[in-house]
């Protein structure tokens, strides 16, 4: 089971620019390395990260993408991403990591805008 550490301010003022941080546990195996026995280690990467914003009271699939990124082999294990967001209304930030071998990790964090 993967773990993620997400840092979002609990509350924010309307119009304020927030820094969001997301760290996820993942080996990010490149597919180019060999084990000590000489066998090629199979590629195991997170391929895509996205964060959607869902306004309070709306259903999940109405969310808008705030940021999305495609990840590649040169990114270190346990990738850390941070980005900025302008707070407009209260809602939920839905984080999603997807990758090789069916990897999928989702987290939701509430954002209260006053």
């Amino acid at each position, binding site marked *: 089971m993967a*773990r993620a*550490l997400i840092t979002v301010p609990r509350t924010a003022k309307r119009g304020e620019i927030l820094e969001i*941080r997301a*760290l996820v546990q993942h*080996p*990010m195996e490149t597919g180019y390395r060999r084990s000590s026995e000489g066998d090629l280690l199979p590629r195991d990467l997170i391929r895509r990260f996205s964060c959607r914003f869902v306004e309070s009271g709306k259903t999940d699939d109405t969310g808008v993408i705030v940021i999305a990124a495609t990840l590649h082999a040169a990114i270190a294990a*346990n990738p850390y991403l941070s980005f900025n967001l302008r707070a407009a209304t209260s809602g939920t930030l839905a984080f999603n990591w997807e990758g090789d071998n069916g990897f999928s990790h989702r987290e939701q964090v509430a954002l209260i805008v006053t």
Partner: protein
Amino acid sequence: MRKIGVATRVIALAMLGFVSLAVAQSTRQSGFDFMQPATQALQKDDTQNPAMLWVKDGQAIWAQRDGATQKSCADCHGDIKRTRGVAARYPQYSAEAKGVINLSQQINQCRTTHQQAKAWPAEDASLLGVETAIAVESRGQPLAPPAQSQLVDAQKRGEAAFDRRIGQVDLSCRDCHESLAGKRLGGNIIPQGHPTGYPIYRLEWQAVGSLQRRLRNCMTAVRSEPYPYGASELVDLEAYLANRAAGMQLESPGVRP
């Protein structure tokens, strides 16, 4: 910030006339002080330090029932915050184990005797998670090995090993970590070899690892046969290192290059 803190202490102590003591104390530096600012920043910020993922794992395991007794660590020990100070005391003598053990061995002792579950293997992610989650509660505490005669014996054995030249390279731990500390070995700066940051997230490992993993790395680096995980020789070295760093602050989970 750290360096200024030490410097002011030196001045304060010098004014009090404790010059020789102050020099001995101020010359001790954590591996943190030898790192690049970018690596230091990773360690200083819990939202960026990847080891915090292991801590989160460990905190979850603390509350999980396991083994034949179906007890969790929390059932017997309460809130993990109550372990404050514990990590700063290890290795220590354990009457149950009839010997000196490190923190991970104490955790496994609880697994096998109190939970009646299988011991976690060395460097297992769950074991490192729990160990790191316990260590983080003692952050900022001075390393304080207890006064136990069995521990003193282990420290002495560890000190002898620290001075023994080993491997094809024929260097002792002290050669590198005292005489050559601060100098470069290939791309790395040789630190003083203090155990204050363990378990650490090492960028080279891309994972959290134990002090024993680090010590085994140093042994292989000088082309000597490393002791196996859990060997009493490694625990003796850990006991000596803790005593050599007594009074320095625990900074787990450290980040190292």
